[in-house]
């Protein structure tokens, strides 16, 4: 079994562990953006009622 170096045995503070984990930060950044900007926005646009056909025809005339 390998002997751990003293530096490796030091406990890394939780805060720094999160700050230094770039994969976790990438995941969090993408998730927050995807949920609040993209999904929420897409859901709102998807739920818009369709333009009534007669209004559409009148506008496009």
């Amino acid at each position, binding site marked *: 079994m390998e002997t751990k170096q003293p530096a490796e045995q030091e406990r890394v503070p939780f805060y720094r562990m999160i*700050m230094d984990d770039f994969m976790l*930060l990438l995941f969090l950044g993408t998730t927050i953006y995807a949920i609040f900007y993209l999904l929420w*926005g897409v859901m709102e646009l998807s739920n818009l009622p369709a333009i009534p056909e007669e209004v559409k025809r009148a506008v496009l005339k």
Partner: protein
Amino acid sequence: MSNTIQETGDLQPAAVTAVAAPEQIFRTCDITGFKVDLRSEKLIRANAVAAVVSLLLAVTAALLLVFTRYQPVHLLNAEWYYRLVTFHGLNALIFWIIFFEVAGLYFGSTVILNTRFSSPKTGWVAFWLMIAGLVISNYYILIGKADVMLTSYTPLKAHPMYYLGVILFAVGAIIAVVLFFGNLMIARRERTYGDSLPLVAYGFMTAAIIALITLATGAIIYIPTFLWSLGLVENIDPAMYKLIWWGLGHSSQQINVAAMVSIWYMVSFLTVGGTSINEKVSRTAFVLYILFICLASAHHLLTDPGVSSAWKVWNTSYAMYLAVLASMIHAFAVPSSFESAQRRWGYNKGLFEWLSKAPWGNPAFSSIILAVIGFGFIGGTTGVIFGMEQTNIIVHNTIAIPGHFKGTVVIGTTLTFMGITYYLIPLIFRRKIVGMGWAKWQPWLFFIGIALLSISMIVLGQLGVPRRHWDSTFSGGPFTYNFNPAVDFFWTLMMLGGSIAFLSVCIWIGIVVTSVFFGPRVNGPEDMQLKISPLAPPAKSHKGFEAPGTLVLTFIFLLVFLALFFLNWKWLAATWYVK
């Protein structure tokens, strides 16, 4: 006194692994002491050169556009005006910026971390994909097959090759960002840095994460639009297109912000040996960028009826201003790092001796200080005000909006990139700067030019002048509008500012090209024209504020912001009278 970063600074990795240079892939920089991967160096050079070429294309178009919007000249016809608006937007906001950022990412992940490049061949694939994208898109714009402006809102349709060009460029950029993370993983595995990434590399990591989010959004919208242009997809919903496109368009400018702030910290270190007075807080500010800054894309949909006010308020406030808080932290941390270091060098008299005795003759230093001022006072203040649902309505779709981002992307990012290039020429291209006298003036000239241009555009927008409009006099149109006569003065000021800035960019490109291709070789530290400062000594005693001058400057900034905030609400109240 030592003159190498390795011997003095905190950019130095705590534990440099003594790896013998296999196949001579490394050189040790005799100025900084860094171990430089030669394959990475070539990629940095190539991307930096492509960035400069893109900037030249962008500013040439910009000058023609300025003299078109300046009514007494009205240079181009309508067709060419919109063609060059497209050309300018793509080259300035995408090609120039992203090529330079890729160079920065490679520098930050290999040179600063003393590590090797993960896959140089893939790096060249990424580079040539980006070049192909640049050439194809620009070609189709110039032959008149893509007069759709940068946003290319549907149902405007460009030639399929235009979209393909943009997609190729984005794919190349995504590969470059993935390589950056590959380099970080190698550095971590080989323990070439200490417990945490150095702050500058951390900032570049932030930029890279934002870049991945941005470019992925670009793929989501550009691939179906490409298929639509080929006739394979029947319809692209314009509202949906706009929502997703701005996830690319606005967030891509947030990559700039993170990269730019990283360079600010780097220049503080290089020029005066400064470091953040609280690195933990600076890192937290970068994390706030990662988490919340991309939400701000919603600014562009503030007048769209399809999305709710709740969505707009939450997103345009960057999640209740947490990302704005991050910018405020950096806006304090960067100048205070200069001040703290200068005070430790002995420039302690009064509030501002640290500033008056700063290395103003160093063009990298002056560029960064001017970029901080311009970004904060012009770009930052207007960004927050124009980004609010209420005050946005005064300027939405007016020329004030490009005026605002001249304050962020041009004075902020472009001037910062210009400034750091004065260090890249001797350190990466190994050439002396030719025309140092010109180099000392160039940042000032650029700052004055863009400040005039930006402020004029903002005022014109407040007076109702539309953006992206070939003829704002509406001559020959069924509707006319008489603008406030003051607009004539501000059009002239805008034209003057644009011309001065163009001149300054020409000087900068002249210096860069002459130095890189014809400049004398740098053979050692004695050829270094710009000082690389040792780390500032530790403070002997600490009483009161560490950076009182910066604190005063911050309060001045806040007062200016409050005044502008009040003025805009007053302007809004005057525009729409409510009984």
